C-alpha cells in the first residue's frame, strides 16, 4: 500500500492505495464520487473519463499512484453555485442525455475538446472534428447526433457572452401544451451533474462483495465442488453452490428452466457454478480461484443444425421435450395457402439468410445490492422489469410475494438486456439471507457478455411471390433460431420471428414455421425490435429483389402494398392508425430518391425498407387479470402531484412521459409533478419496460389517473360554487370558467379540494381491449396499436476492399403522437445507430462455445466516427387509443434500417447481402463471381 495525496475537485485527499489500484476505483470507492462511471475497465468505452491536471484520461486504466499530488477534476466539479456548466446545459437542452451513463465521461471529453475546435472552418468541419474527438466515448442510446449538436453549440458560444441562461431551473415556465413540446428528461440535470445514482453507485453500509466462479466447459456434469480451501481465506463469509438454491425460474411461465447456479451440470461456458461473499472484491476473486470443481465433459451442441438433429447417445441439453433432440420450441401458423400462392404468383423469389447473435451493449454493467430485514428482502438492481423480478425472487427464495421489494435506481440502458430475472439477483438475495449482511455485485463487461440474453443467431429461408403489376401474393418463412442454453423470452421470440411479418403489407397467403433450439452457449432473449429484426431483414431484402425482377421502383412497390388504416391483417391484428405511406413519402423526399435512384455511380447506392412494431403486448406474460398498468396520483396540501408507477424508466424517458401526461390533463406545470417510479413496495404494478409498452400502457393509465384527479377537483369546486362541471377549464396552473367568474389558482383549488378531507389519492389503469382471433397462437404479437416506419440509407462501397461506409440515414417513424418530440427523436436516432451496428460491425463470435469478443474493443459498437448523419422524422397519425394519440417509438425504428443498408449495397455493387454483419470479404467474393458469370448488377 502507498500513501498518495490527491486534489480532487479542489479538495485535498490522502488515500492509502494499493500500488496497482486504478484511479477510477479510488475516485468511486474511496472519494465516493460516483459520477465517474465504469463501463468496460479496459479503456475502450470512455465512461470513466476525468481530467488529470486538466488533461482527459481514462481513469479505469490510470494507476492511482501516478496521480500523487495531481489535480483531478470529475463531473461533480462542473456545476458551480447550484448552476450547471454551460456545456452541461447544452447536453440537457439538446436532449443529449438518455440513460445518462456515458454522459459524465462524454461531458469530460467534450470539455477538454471544445476549446481546441476550429470554429472558423464552418459547422460541418467542426462537427467532423467533434465526431473524431468523441470517438473514444461509446454511447448506446443516442446515436451521438444530439451529443454532437450539444458540443457544437457549446463551442460556438464559448467566447460569446450570453445575457440569460437558456435553461431555467426545471423548466418552470409552463408551455401552452405539455404534450408535443420538446423537453429534456426531468432527471437530465441530475444525470449531467453525475448525481444520478445507478445500481453500483449506491453504497450500502457493511455490504459484502460477491464474485462468481464460472464454468469453463460448454456441457459437463459437475462431479464435485470443493470449497474448503476457499473458505479458509480470511475475509470470506460464505460460499454458495447451485444445490442450495434449486428452485427454477425464468421470465416466461412456460420456460422456468434456469437455476441461480448450475445444479449437477453446466450448459454453457460462463455459467455460474459457485458464488463467494467476501469483505472485498479482491478477496472474493481470490476465493473463486481456490474453489476446485471436478467436471465430466459431455458432448456439446453449438450450432442450430447440431441441435435440430437427433442427439443420438449424447445427453440432451435439457430433459425437456418428447423428442431426442435439442429443440426448445416449434411455432407455426398458416393463413391462406402458401403453396397455391407461390404457384399462382407471376414472379417468385426465395433466399436463405444467416445472422450472428448480437448483444445489447448497454453501457452500464449489471449491478445490484440485496439485504434482508424485518420487511423481508430488498434488492436494488439494474432491471427493466421489477414486477417479474419480484415474482421470480419470491419463488426462488420461497417467500410470499409480500416479503420482496424490488427497487430500480437510475438505469444505464437496457434494450431488452435487463428484462429477465437474472441469476446474479437470485444469488445475492440468497447470500444476503445466509450472511445476514447486505451483498453487492457488479458484473464485469466480460460477465455482461456471458449473461447475454441478446438477439438470437438465426437462419432462415423465406419465399415470396408477387404479381407482375407489383401486388404481393404470398410469404412463407422457415426459420430456426439459436436460443443458447436457456429459455428466456425464447418462446415469444419464436413466434415474433413469424407473426411480425404479417404487416405492414397486405398479404393473403402467409405462413411460417420457427424452431428455437437450445445450444451450449449463453442464452439469448429479447433485444430491441424483439424477434422480428432478422426476419424483417429477410422480407425487405426479398421485396427489393422482387421489385428488381419486375422492374418496379421498390418504394412504389411498397406504397401500393401497404395495409390501410383501420384494417385487419391476415392474422387478425387490428391496425388502427398507420403512417406507413407518410413515412415512406417523407424519406423519399428527403433523400431525393426519385432523382437519384439508378443514377448513382458504381459503388454508391440508396436502399429502402419499411417496418412496423407492437405498442405493447396486449396479453401479459404471466396470465392474470391485473390491468397492464396502474398509476397512482397523490395530491396533498403543498399542491404537488405525486405520480407513482411501477414502470421502469431505463433511459428512454418514460418518467418524463408520465409527468407530461399528468401535466397536460391537469393544466399544471411540470415542476408541480413528481414521479416516483419502479419500487415494488411503493408503486402499483406495471409489467415493465419491454415490448414497447410503456408510453401506450402506463401513459394511458397516467391519463386515466389524472382524469380521475381532475374529476375530484371539479367535484369539489362544483360543490362549493354550484356551477356546471362542464364550464371548468384547467390551464396554465389555473382552474377557471370561460367567463372567469370563477378563476382559481392551482393552490386555491387545492385548498378547496383538501378542506376537511386532506390528501387525495386516485388511481388510473390501462386494460387492453379484447383483440385477435381464437386460433392457437392468435395472441402472439397482438397489440392495441402498431407503429410504422421507413428508412432510406445511402452507402459508399469500396469496390477494391469491399468495405461499406454508410453515409446517410433518412428515417421516418409513425409514433402516433410525439408526447415529447425531443425524446422521440432520441429513440429513433438510437434505434438507427443500433441497427447500423448490427448491419456492419457487431457480432458475437465463438470459439468452441467460448465467446471471443467479450469486451468493447472486440465487440464493435459504432463510434461517433462510424455513424453517419442521421435524419430523423417524426410522423404523427394520432392513434385513437394511444394516450393523446401516442404509440411506441423505442423499438420499431430499428427494423427498417438494417435491410435499407443491405438494399443500398445491392444498388451500389449488385451484391445481395444474406449474412449479417456485412462482411467485406463476402462482398468482394460475390462481386468477383458476378464478373465471371457475367451477372447483372443493374
Amino acid at each position, binding site marked *: *500500500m*502507498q500513501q498518495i495525496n490527491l486534489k480532487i475537485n479542489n479538495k485535498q485527499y490522502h488515500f492509502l492505495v*494499493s*500500488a*496497482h489500484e*486504478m484511479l477510477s476505483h479510488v475516485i468511486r470507492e474511496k472519494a465516493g464520487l460516483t459520477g465517474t462511471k465504469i463501463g468496460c*475497465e*479496459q*479503456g*475502450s468505452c470512455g465512461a470513466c473519463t476525468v481530467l488529470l491536471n486538466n*488533461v*482527459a*484520461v*481514462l481513469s479505469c*486504466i*490510470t*494507476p492511482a*499512484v*501516478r496521480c*500523487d499530488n495531481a489535480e483531478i477534476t470529475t463531473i461533480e466539479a462542473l456545476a458551480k453555485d447550484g448552476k450547471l456548466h454551460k456545456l452541461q446545459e447544452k447536453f440537457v437542452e439538446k436532449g443529449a442525455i438518455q440513460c445518462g451513463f456515458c454522459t459524465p465521461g462524454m461531458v469530460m*471529453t467534450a470539455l477538454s*475538446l471544445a476549446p481546441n475546435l476550429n470554429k472558423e472552418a464552418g459547422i460541418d468541419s467542426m462537427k467532423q472534428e467533434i465526431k473524431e*474527438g*468523441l*470517438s*473514444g*466515448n461509446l454511447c448506446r442510446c443516442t446515436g451521438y447526433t444530439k451529443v454532437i449538436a450539444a458540443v457544437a453549440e457549446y463551442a460556438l458560444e464559448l467566447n460569446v457572452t450570453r445575457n440569460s441562461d437558456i435553461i431555467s431551473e426545471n423548466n418552470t415556465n409552463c408551455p401552452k401544451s405539455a404534450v408535443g413540446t420538446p423537453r429534456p428528461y426531468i432527471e437530465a440535470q441530475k444525470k449531467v451533474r453525475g448525481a444520478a445514482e445507478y445500481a453500483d453507485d449506491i453504497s450500502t453500509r457493511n455490504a459484502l462483495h460477491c464474485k462468481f466462479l*464460472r464454468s*469453463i*466447459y460448454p456441457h459437463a456434469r459437475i462431479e464435485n465442488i470443493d470449497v474448503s480451501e476457499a473458505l479458509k481465506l*480470511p475475509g470470506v463469509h460464505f460460499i454458495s453452490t447451485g444445490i442450495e438454491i434449486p428452485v427454477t425460474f425464468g421470465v416466461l411461465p412456460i420456460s422456468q428452466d434456469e437455476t441461480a447456479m448450475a445444479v449437477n451440470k453446466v450448459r454453457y461456458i460462463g455459467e455460474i457454478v459457485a458464488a463467494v461473499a467476501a469483505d472485498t472484491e*479482491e*478477496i472474493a*476473486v*481470490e476465493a473463486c*480461484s481456490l474453489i476446485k470443481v471436478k467436471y465430466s465433459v459431455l458432448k456439446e451442441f453449438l450450432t442450430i443444425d447440431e441441435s435440430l438433429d437427433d442427439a443420438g447417445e449424447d445427453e440432451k441439453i435439457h430433459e425437456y421435450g418428447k423428442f431426442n433432440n435439442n429443440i426448445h420450441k416449434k411455432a407455426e401458423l398458416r393463413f391462406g395457402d402458401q403453396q397455391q400462392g407461390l404457384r399462382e404468383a407471376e414472379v417468385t423469389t426465395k433466399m436463405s439468410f444467416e445472422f450472428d447473435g448480437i448483444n445489447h451493449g448497454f453501457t452500464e454493467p449489471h449491478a445490484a445490492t440485496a439485504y434482508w430485514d424485518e420487511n423481508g428482502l430488498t434488492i436494488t438492481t439494474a432491471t427493466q422489469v421489477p414486477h417479474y423480478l419480484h415474482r421470480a425472487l419470491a419463488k426462488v427464495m420461497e417467500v410470499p410475494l409480500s416479503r420482496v421489494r424490488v427497487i430500480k435506481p437510475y438505469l444505464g440502458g437496457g434494450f431488452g438486456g435487463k428484462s429477465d430475472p437474472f441469476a446474479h439477483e437470485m444469488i445475492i438475495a440468497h447470500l444476503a439471507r445466509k450472511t445476514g449482511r447486505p451483498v453487492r455485485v457488479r458484473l*464485469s463487461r*466480460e460477465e455482461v457478455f456471458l449473461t447475454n440474453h441478446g438477439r438470437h443467431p438465426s437462419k432462415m429461408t423465406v419465399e415470396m411471390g408477387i404479381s407482375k403489376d407489383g401486388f404481393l401474393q404470398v410469404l412463407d418463412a422457415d426459420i430456426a433460431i439459436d436460443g443458447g442454453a436457456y429459455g428466456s423470452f425464447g418462446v415469444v421470440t419464436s413466434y415474433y420471428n413469424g407473426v411480425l411479418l404479417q404487416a405492414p403489407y397486405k398479404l393473403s397467403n402467409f405462413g411460417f414455421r420457427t424452431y428455437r433450439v437450445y445450444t451450449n452457449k449463453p442464452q439469448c432473449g429479447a433485444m430491441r425490435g424483439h424477434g422480428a429484426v432478422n426476419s424483417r431483414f429477410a422480407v425487405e431484402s426479398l421485396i427489393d429483389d422482387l421489385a428488381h425482377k419486375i422492374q418496379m421502383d421498390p418504394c412504389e412497390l411498397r406504397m401500393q402494398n401497404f395495409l390501410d388504416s383501420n384494417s385487419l391483417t391476415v392474422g387478425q391484428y387490428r391496425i388502427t392508425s398507420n403512417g406507413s405511406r407518410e413515412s415512406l413519402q417523407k424519406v423519399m423526399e428527403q433523400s431525393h430518391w426519385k432523382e437519384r435512384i439508378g443514377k448513382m455511380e458504381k459503388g454508391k447506392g440508396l436502399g429502402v425498407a419499411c417496418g412496423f412494431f407492437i405498442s405493447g403486448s396486449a396479453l401479459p406474460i404471466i396470465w392474470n387479470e391485473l390491468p397492464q398498468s396502474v398509476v397512482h396520483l397523490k395530491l396533498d396540501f403543498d399542491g404537488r402531484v405525486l405520480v407513482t408507477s411501477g414502470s421502469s424508466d431505463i433511459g428512454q424517458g418514460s418518467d418524463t412521459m408520465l409527468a407530461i401526461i399528468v401535466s397536460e390533463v391537469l393544466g399544471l406545470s411540470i415542476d408541480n409533478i413528481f414521479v416516483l417510479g419502479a419500487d415494488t413496495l411503493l408503486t402499483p404494478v406495471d409489467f415493465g419496460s419491454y415490448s414497447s409498452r410503456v408510453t401506450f400502457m402506463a401513459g394511458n393509465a397516467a391519463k386515466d389517473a389524472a382524469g380521475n384527479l381532475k374529476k375530484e377537483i371539479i367535484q369539489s369546486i362544483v360543490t362549493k360554487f354550484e356551477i356546471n362541471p362542464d364550464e371548468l377549464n384547467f390551464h396554465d396552473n389555473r382552474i377557471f370558467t370561460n367567463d372567469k367568474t370563477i378563476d382559481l389558482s392551482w393552490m386555491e383549488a387545492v385548498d378547496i379540494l383538501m378542506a376537511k378531507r386532506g390528501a387525495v389519492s386516485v388511481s388510473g389503469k390501462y386494460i387492453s381491449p379484447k383483440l385477435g382471433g381464437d386460433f392457437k397462437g392468435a395472441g402472439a404479437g397482438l397489440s392495441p396499436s402498431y407503429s410504422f416506419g421507413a428508412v432510406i440509407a445511402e452507402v459508399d462501397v*469500396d469496390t*477494391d*476492399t469491399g*468495405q*461499406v*461506409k454508410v453515409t446517410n440515414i433518412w428515417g421516418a417513424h409513425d409514433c402516433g403522437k410525439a408526447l415529447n418530440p425531443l425524446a422521440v427523436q432520441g429513440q429513433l436516432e438510437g434505434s438507427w445507430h443500433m441497427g447500423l451496428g448490427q448491419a456492419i*460491425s457487431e457480432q458475437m463470435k465463438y*470459439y*468452441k462455445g*467460448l465467446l*471471443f*469478443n*467479450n469486451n468493447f*474493443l*472486440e465487440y*464493435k459498437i*459504432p*463510434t461517433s*466516427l*462510424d455513424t453517419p448523419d442521421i435524419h430523423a422524422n417524426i410522423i404523427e397519425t394520432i392513434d385513437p387509443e394511444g394516450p393523446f394519440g401516442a404509440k411506441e417509438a423505442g423499438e420499431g425504428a430499428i427494423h427498417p434500417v438494417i435491410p435499407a443498408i443491405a438494399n443500398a449495397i445491392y444498388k451500389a455493387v449488385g451484391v445481395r447481402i444474406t449474412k449479417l454483419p456485412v462482411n467485406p*470479404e463476402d462482398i*468482394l467474393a460475390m462481386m468477383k463471381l458476378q464478373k465471371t458469370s457475367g451477372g447483372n448488377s443493374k
Partner: protein
Amino acid sequence: MTVISENKYISPNSVEQAVSAAVEHKGSYRYIAGGTDVMVNKFQGNDTADLLIDLTGIQGLKEILKTDTHIIIGALTTLEELQNQQLLATHFPMLPEAAKSVASPTIRKSATLGGNLLCENRCIFYNQSEWWREAAGRCLKCNGDICLASGGNKYCYSKFVSDIAVVLISLNAEIEIINEHETSVIPLETIYSGDGINPVLLPKTSIIKSIYIPLIDGNRSAFKKLRKRETLDFTSLTTSLTIKNSGSVRIVLGGAHAKPVIVDGSVEDDLEVLFSQVVSNTRIIENDTYSRSYRKDMIRVFLKRSFVELNSKSPYSITGSNEPQK
C-alpha cells in the same frame, strides 16, 4: 492475484534511476509510460509484474528537435503531440497520420511514442481474461503447448500492432536505447524478433530514449490501415510505402507477422513481383476480426493504391493518404 499485495509502483526522475531500479528489483517489473497497453494487460492478467516503473516523470524525453540531418523525437512524446506537431507534418506527414490512427483520442493523450513501439503483440486468443484463457486451453503465448489460432502450430505469430513503428521503419528511423550495459543507437527494425512470445530483442532493462529520423529530401510516403471501426481498433493490417528520390522503395507492413515485414525494392521493379515478395514474407494467421485470406488480399490493394497515390504526387507535397479507412 494475491490478497496482501506486494505490488509496488515507483516513479524515478531519470533514465539511470529507472534502469538501476529495474536491475535491483528481484521480482518481475515492467516499465510503463502512458500505460494504456500495460494496464489493460494487467487487468486481463497477461502482465503480472509486481513492480511498475513509471517513466513519465523523467525529464528530457518529451522534446522534438531538428538538427541538420535528423529529427529527434523523445520517446515520451505522446501520440497526441505527434499528431499535432507541425514540424513532423512538414517533413514526415505520414507520421502524424499514423499517430492519429492509433486507439482513441483520449488514449492518445496518455499513450507515448516509446510505448507504441513496444506495444505487446496481440492475438484474439491471448488478449483475454485469465478465466477465458483457461477455458480456451491456454495458447503458446500464455504458457500453453500449442498455438490455438493456427490450430496447433508450435510457433507464435501473434500480431505486431505498432502502426508508428511501421512508419518509422519505412523512414529508416533509429532508436537510442539505454540499459544497464550500454547506450546505443540502432535501427528500429532490429529490435523486433519475429517471435510472438518475446517480440522484442532488447535486454529487459532497456529503455528507449529517443527516435532519430533521417532528413532525406524527396521522400514520398503513403500509409494505410485496415480495421473495422475508424477509431479504437488495433490494426488488422498496416502498410506504409516510401518512395525515395533515389528510386528505391521501402514497404513496411504491420499486423501481418509477429514483427514488421520489410521489403526493399526499386521503382523499376515489377510491382506484381514486389507484392508477391511482400505477401510471401508475411505470417498471417486466423487471430483477428478479419480472416487471414482477406488480410492477405488487402496487402496488394493497399500497396497498389499507395503507388497510384504517390505517382500522382510530388515529393514533400504529400499530405498523406486521404482514403477513408474503414
